[in-house]
């Protein structure tokens, strides 16, 4: 049964790999991911064996796993109706009919077949040549989009290129410490998530910071573009198909991530689960993958492997968010029941990319990636040498958390409870490590005034007040200035960060920077500059950009604004990602 093969589909299903003439031998100094390809089959086998083992312990569990997979896959495939459906729908329909009559051995074989297919689909690839290419080429290409006249220069290997990118992205935080810890420990990066650019930006930030590349899961929808797919696939990304709801598939994903961490591959995942629709800092986390990291730690300890594991909270802070307009619309539309996958947003449209990069040209610090201080799997801070610290700063043995009456043991429910504690720590750390940008400050002042003028209205009613609230330049500068100063006081207390570029700027500069960033990229005007006055034109966009400030709203408000600030704080309680 030869299919008519669509070449695009071939690349997205079986991503292209470069052939090798001689076998690749990594150097001892290379980061762990350089060894990944040699260990790949072994990792996949390990994942399959452990997932199958978990579901075949007894007959009811085995039947549940098969029924669950058949039910969810029949639903998904009949809806998809594509080539994949043609290949596999029949199998699952047959399975659903036969389960009751199958022998235990047949059932086990069927489950193994399903799990094997999932595990092979998930596993990534890492090609050091592609990594080298990407890390030299991508910053130069981005620079090229921004400064077309500099492109020929940037492409010369001697140009030292990509200066513009270095200006654009600022990488800050506990870099020195992380470079030290990654040598003997395993790092799990857990960043905030606002844009599909995040994984690209973060990959570049790791490189700029002198840290090893990390393995991460990327949505299968990102693999449909053959070029992006080629890079993603060969840079160690594993594929996550969010349409598959079968329990066995989720187990494969978690186990894959767990096995990678057990074997010491630095990893990355977004605990928010999806891009923050509202631009609120993540305050409710999806802890599935964090849980598998904690389990990886206990599994290693039980086997006597005492490599340490560190979670690194990272905040990615944009002056301008590529997909901002679509995301906030989505948040409002479904009030927290956001569509999980958005197709055809700004990320997939080249004209929006060009407009985006043109806008942030020369804007130094338009994106700040801040690596927070690492914590151990139980939320404790660690010292310079990576040793866990108890309250009061006394070093303690991190292995003690998995001991039960003196013996290290594995206990999935215990680890789930630890993970929940860890999640609470990460949420606090995101606040402390978030970097507030000019657009957030200006949006907050404007939106707060809209709230004041529409006191007691519900959110949707309020958002219809377009272009009705104006500020004299003078009053706006005054409020932005006092907001900045209050945030700096919070910054001194270690509660939040203010972007370096606006720390010492005049309020007038901050306002101009925000207005010029918004206008001309977003298709809707966030705020209109009318010379002597600034009008809050689109409360929806202002809401989006000010949402980063929600946790601090009440503490930075004047007496006149306290009521409005309280209404703004309620946004977080309202929930929604």
């Amino acid at each position, binding site marked *: 049964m030869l299919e008519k093969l669509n070449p695009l589909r071939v690349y997205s299903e079986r991503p292209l790999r470069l052939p090798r003439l001689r076998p690749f031998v990594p150097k001892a100094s290379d980061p762990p991911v350089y060894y990944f390809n040699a260990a790949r089959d072994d990792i996949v086998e390990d994942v399959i064996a452990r997932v199958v083992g978990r579901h075949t312990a007894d007959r009811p569990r085995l039947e549940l796993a098969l029924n669950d997979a058949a039910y969810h896959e029949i639903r998904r495939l009949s809806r998809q109706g594509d080539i994949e459906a043609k290949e596999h729908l029949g199998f699952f329909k047959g399975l659903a009919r036969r389960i009751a009559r199958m022998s235990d051995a047949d059932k086990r074989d069927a489950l193994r077949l399903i799990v094997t297919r999932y595990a092979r689909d998930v596993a990534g690839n890492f090609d050091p040549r592609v990594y080298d290419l990407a890390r030299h080429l991508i910053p130069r290409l981005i620079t090229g989009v921004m400064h077309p006249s500099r492109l020929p220069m940037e492409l010369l290997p001697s140009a030292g290129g990509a200066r513009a990118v270095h200006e654009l992205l600022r990488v800050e935080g506990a870099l020195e410490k992380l470079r030290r810890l990654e040598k003997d420990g395993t790092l799990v990066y857990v960043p905030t998530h606002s844009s599909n650019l995040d994984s690209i930006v973060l990959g570049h930030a790791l490189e700029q910071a002198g840290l090893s590349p990390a393995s991460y899961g990327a949505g299968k929808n990102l693999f449909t573009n053959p070029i992006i797919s080629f890079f993603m696939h060969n840079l160690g990304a594993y594929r996550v198909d969010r349409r598959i709801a079968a329990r066995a598939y989720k187990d494969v994903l978690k186990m894959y991530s767990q096995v990678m961490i057990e074997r010491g591959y630095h990893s990355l995942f977004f605990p928010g689960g999806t891009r923050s629709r509202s631009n609120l800092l993540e305050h409710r986390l999806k802890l599935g993958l964090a849980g598998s990291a904690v389990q990886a730690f206990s599994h290693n300890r039980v086997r006597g492997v005492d490599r340490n594991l560190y979670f690194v909270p990272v905040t990615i802070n944009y002056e301008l968010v590529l997909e901002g307009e679509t995301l906030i619309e989505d948040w409002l539309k479904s009030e927290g029941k956001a569509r999980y996958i958005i197709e055809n947003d700004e990320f997939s449209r080249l004209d929006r990319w060009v407009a985006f990069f043109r806008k942030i040209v020369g804007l130094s610090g338009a994106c700040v990636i801040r690596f927070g201080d690492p914590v151990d799997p139980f939320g404790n801070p660690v010292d310079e040498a990576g040793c866990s610290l108890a309250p009061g700063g006394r070093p303690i043995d991190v292995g*003690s958390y998995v001991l039960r009456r003196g013996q290290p043991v594995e206990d999935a429910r215990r680890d789930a409870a630890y993970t929940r504690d860890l999640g609470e720590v990460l949420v606090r750390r995101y606040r402390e490590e978030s970097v507030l940008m000019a657009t957030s400050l200006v949006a907050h002042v404007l939106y707060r005034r809209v709230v004041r003028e529409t006191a007691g209205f519900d959110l949707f009613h309020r958002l219809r007040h377009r272009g009705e609230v104006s500020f004299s330049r003078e009053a706006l500068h005054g409020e932005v200035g006092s907001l900045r100063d209050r945030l700096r006081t919070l910054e001194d207390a270690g509660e939040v960060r203010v972007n370096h570029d606006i720390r010492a700027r005049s309020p007038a500069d901050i306002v101009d920077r925000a207005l010029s960033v918004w206008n001309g990229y977003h298709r809707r005007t966030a705020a209109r500059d009318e010379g002597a006055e600034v009008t809050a034109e689109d409360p929806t966009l202002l809401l989006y950009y000010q949402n980063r400030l929600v946790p601090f709203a009440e503490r930075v408000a004047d007496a006149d604004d306290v009521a409005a600030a309280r209404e703004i704080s309620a946004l977080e309680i309202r929930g929604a990602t």
Partner: protein
Amino acid sequence: MSGASVRVGVLGGGGFGQGLAAAAARARNDVLLWSRSERELPGGVGSTRDLAALAECDVLFLAVPSGYVEALSTELGTHLDGSHVLVHVSRGLVGAQLGTLSQLLRTTTPCRRVGALAGPLIAEALVSGAPSGAVVGTRFPEVANLVRDAIASEGFASTSRRTSSGSRSRAPSSGSSRWPWVTGVASARGRPP
């Protein structure tokens, strides 16, 4: 889990402290009671005035008035690590944030495996071994099991099950703390509870 005895520590020499120590001794566990002042102790219970000695225990019961828990647990915490299980009998909301004692213990000590012991718990009944029951609220099933092993003795009927409302259940006063696991420890001397 049962078999090897549990090393039980009790902080507080008041009615509950003595009752818990007596119950643990009756369950044939090694018991060490810490108190600021000299006390007359139930049989089989060791005593100490040194918090560091409690580091040898598997599980520690805090039975001091809730106002003292912060200072005491901060000092106690300097002797403990992640392997210790803490269970508080004291209750109430503490601090400006009105946190539960379970939350407090997770910030003043390195311990994460924390539980609250509550229920129709009567100090005299613990001492005398009269029929009595208790529940443990914790995120960690193993904490509930350990408490049962620590204070439930032969002739005690004990149950451990997930509450019917599962992990969604909340203690009415606790705000964000969840109490998914409940262990009942009920005495049945002679007749079922």
